[in-house]
Protein backbone atom coordinates (compact mmCIF):
# COMPACT_ATOMS: atom_id res chain seq x y z
CA UNK A 1 0.00 0.00 0.00
CA UNK A 2 2.74 2.43 1.01
CA UNK A 3 4.60 1.51 -2.20
CA UNK A 4 1.73 2.89 -4.27
CA UNK A 5 1.80 6.07 -2.16
CA UNK A 6 5.50 6.40 -2.94
CA UNK A 7 4.89 6.01 -6.67
CA UNK A 8 2.17 8.69 -6.48
CA UNK A 9 4.69 11.05 -4.85
CA UNK A 10 7.30 10.30 -7.53
CA UNK A 11 4.67 10.82 -10.26
CA UNK A 12 3.82 14.30 -8.97
CA UNK A 13 7.52 15.09 -8.70
CA UNK A 14 8.07 14.22 -12.35
CA UNK A 15 5.02 16.34 -13.25
CA UNK A 16 6.78 19.26 -11.52
CA UNK A 17 9.91 18.53 -13.60
CA UNK A 18 7.80 18.53 -16.76
CA UNK A 19 6.24 21.88 -15.84
CA UNK A 20 9.71 23.28 -15.23
CA UNK A 21 10.99 22.00 -18.57
CA UNK A 22 8.05 23.44 -20.50
CA UNK A 23 8.43 26.77 -18.70
CA UNK A 24 12.10 26.86 -19.61
CA UNK A 25 11.10 26.92 -23.28
CA UNK A 26 8.02 29.11 -22.88
CA UNK A 27 9.47 32.01 -20.88
CA UNK A 28 10.90 34.99 -22.78
CA UNK A 29 13.98 36.16 -20.83
CA UNK A 30 16.66 34.99 -18.45
CA UNK A 31 15.12 36.12 -15.13
CA UNK A 32 11.82 34.31 -15.66
CA UNK A 33 13.64 31.24 -16.93
CA UNK A 34 15.78 31.23 -13.80
CA UNK A 35 12.67 31.53 -11.63
CA UNK A 36 10.91 28.64 -13.38
CA UNK A 37 13.98 26.48 -13.50
CA UNK A 38 14.82 26.62 -9.82
CA UNK A 39 11.58 26.80 -7.84
CA UNK A 40 9.83 23.97 -9.61
CA UNK A 41 12.79 21.60 -9.61
CA UNK A 42 13.29 22.04 -5.86
CA UNK A 43 9.71 20.90 -5.26
CA UNK A 44 10.16 18.06 -7.77
CA UNK A 45 13.30 16.63 -6.16
CA UNK A 46 11.76 16.86 -2.67
CA UNK A 47 8.70 14.92 -3.88
CA UNK A 48 10.88 12.28 -5.57
CA UNK A 49 12.92 11.84 -2.38
CA UNK A 50 9.70 11.51 -0.31
CA UNK A 51 8.47 8.82 -2.68
CA UNK A 52 11.78 6.94 -2.49
CA UNK A 53 11.59 7.04 1.34
CA UNK A 54 8.07 5.57 1.15
CA UNK A 55 9.22 2.76 -1.17
CA UNK A 56 12.46 1.85 0.68
CA UNK A 57 12.20 3.01 4.31
CA UNK A 58 15.63 1.65 5.20
CA UNK A 59 17.40 4.18 2.96
CA UNK A 60 15.82 7.10 4.80
CA UNK A 61 19.06 8.46 6.31
CA UNK A 62 20.94 8.91 3.03
CA UNK A 63 17.88 10.29 1.25
CA UNK A 64 17.17 12.88 3.97
CA UNK A 65 20.85 13.89 3.78
CA UNK A 66 20.47 14.29 0.00
CA UNK A 67 17.36 16.46 0.51
CA UNK A 68 19.29 18.69 2.94
CA UNK A 69 22.15 19.06 0.45
CA UNK A 70 19.74 20.01 -2.35
CA UNK A 71 17.93 22.52 -0.11
CA UNK A 72 21.28 24.10 0.82
CA UNK A 73 22.76 24.39 -2.65
CA UNK A 74 19.87 24.95 -5.06
CA UNK A 75 18.90 28.55 -4.07
CA UNK A 76 22.57 29.48 -4.10
CA UNK A 77 23.07 28.69 -7.78
CA UNK A 78 19.91 30.58 -8.76
CA UNK A 79 20.99 33.70 -6.89
CA UNK A 80 24.47 33.56 -8.44
CA UNK A 81 22.96 33.30 -11.94
CA UNK A 82 20.54 36.18 -11.29
CA UNK A 83 23.30 38.49 -10.07
CA UNK A 84 25.61 37.52 -12.91
CA UNK A 85 23.06 38.21 -15.64
CA UNK A 86 22.09 41.51 -13.99
CA UNK A 87 25.74 42.58 -14.02
CA UNK A 88 26.03 41.41 -17.60
CA UNK A 89 23.21 43.77 -18.59
CA UNK A 90 20.25 41.51 -19.24
CA UNK A 91 16.84 43.22 -19.37
CA UNK A 92 13.30 42.08 -18.70
CA UNK A 93 11.21 41.35 -21.76
CA UNK A 94 7.85 42.39 -20.28
CA UNK A 95 8.71 45.28 -17.98
CA UNK A 96 5.50 46.70 -16.50
CA UNK A 97 7.29 49.18 -14.25
CA UNK A 98 8.78 51.08 -17.17
CA UNK A 99 5.27 52.18 -18.25
CA UNK A 100 4.54 53.43 -14.74
CA UNK A 101 7.69 55.53 -14.60
CA UNK A 102 6.98 57.29 -17.89
Amino acid at each position, binding site marked *: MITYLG*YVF*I*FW*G*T*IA*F*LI*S*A*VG*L*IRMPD*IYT*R*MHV*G*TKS*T*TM*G*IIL*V*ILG*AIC*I*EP*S*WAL*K*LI*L*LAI*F*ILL*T*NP*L*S*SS*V*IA*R*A*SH*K*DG*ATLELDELKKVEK
Partner: protein
Amino acid sequence: MFELVTILLLLSMMITLYRFLKGPTLADRVVAFDVMNIMGVSLLILLALYFQRSLYLDIALVFGLIGFLGTTIFGRYIEKGI
Protein backbone atom coordinates in the same frame (compact mmCIF):
# COMPACT_ATOMS: atom_id res chain seq x y z
CA MET B 1 4.53 2.27 -12.91
CA PHE B 2 8.32 2.67 -12.90
CA GLU B 3 8.32 2.83 -16.71
CA LEU B 4 5.76 5.67 -16.78
CA VAL B 5 7.72 7.76 -14.28
CA THR B 6 11.03 7.21 -16.07
CA ILE B 7 9.58 8.08 -19.47
CA LEU B 8 8.11 11.31 -18.04
CA LEU B 9 11.52 12.20 -16.57
CA LEU B 10 13.35 11.44 -19.83
CA LEU B 11 10.79 13.53 -21.74
CA SER B 12 11.38 16.54 -19.51
CA MET B 13 15.16 16.03 -19.87
CA MET B 14 14.74 16.08 -23.65
CA ILE B 15 12.71 19.31 -23.51
CA THR B 16 15.38 20.89 -21.31
CA LEU B 17 18.03 19.73 -23.78
CA TYR B 18 16.38 21.94 -26.42
CA ARG B 19 17.01 25.07 -24.33
CA PHE B 20 20.49 23.78 -23.48
CA LEU B 21 21.38 23.47 -27.16
CA LYS B 22 19.62 26.57 -28.47
CA GLY B 23 19.89 29.16 -25.66
CA PRO B 24 20.87 32.51 -27.14
CA THR B 25 23.17 33.61 -24.29
CA LEU B 26 25.56 31.74 -22.04
CA ALA B 27 23.36 32.35 -18.96
CA ASP B 28 20.44 30.49 -20.57
CA ARG B 29 22.63 27.47 -21.11
CA VAL B 30 23.86 27.62 -17.51
CA VAL B 31 20.28 27.69 -16.18
CA ALA B 32 19.36 24.72 -18.39
CA PHE B 33 22.47 22.88 -17.15
CA ASP B 34 21.44 23.49 -13.54
CA VAL B 35 17.96 22.10 -14.19
CA MET B 36 19.45 19.07 -15.96
CA ASN B 37 21.73 18.49 -12.96
CA ILE B 38 18.73 18.19 -10.61
CA MET B 39 16.91 15.96 -13.10
CA GLY B 40 20.00 13.77 -13.32
CA VAL B 41 20.04 13.40 -9.51
CA SER B 42 16.44 12.23 -9.53
CA LEU B 43 17.16 9.83 -12.42
CA LEU B 44 20.02 8.35 -10.35
CA ILE B 45 17.64 7.90 -7.38
CA LEU B 46 15.08 6.15 -9.59
CA LEU B 47 17.74 3.84 -11.04
CA ALA B 48 18.99 2.99 -7.54
CA LEU B 49 15.40 2.02 -6.69
CA TYR B 50 15.27 -0.10 -9.86
CA PHE B 51 18.58 -1.90 -9.24
CA GLN B 52 17.84 -2.27 -5.48
CA ARG B 53 21.35 -1.09 -4.50
CA SER B 54 21.62 1.51 -1.75
CA LEU B 55 25.35 1.89 -2.47
CA TYR B 56 24.54 3.61 -5.75
CA LEU B 57 23.05 6.53 -3.83
CA ASP B 58 26.58 7.81 -3.12
CA ILE B 59 26.88 9.16 -6.65
CA ALA B 60 23.59 11.04 -6.26
CA LEU B 61 24.95 12.47 -3.00
CA VAL B 62 28.08 13.73 -4.78
CA PHE B 63 25.98 15.40 -7.47
CA GLY B 64 23.68 16.95 -4.89
CA LEU B 65 26.55 18.39 -2.89
CA ILE B 66 29.09 19.64 -5.44
CA GLY B 67 27.02 19.77 -8.62
CA PHE B 68 26.27 23.45 -8.05
CA LEU B 69 29.96 24.37 -8.25
CA GLY B 70 29.92 24.36 -12.04
CA THR B 71 26.99 26.80 -12.03
CA THR B 72 28.77 29.04 -9.52
CA ILE B 73 32.00 29.12 -11.52
CA PHE B 74 30.14 30.00 -14.71
CA GLY B 75 28.18 32.69 -12.87
CA ARG B 76 31.40 34.28 -11.65
CA TYR B 77 32.76 34.07 -15.20
CA ILE B 78 29.66 35.80 -16.68
CA GLU B 79 29.85 38.72 -14.23
CA LYS B 80 33.59 38.97 -15.03
CA GLY B 81 34.51 38.46 -11.38
CA ILE B 82 36.96 35.58 -11.71
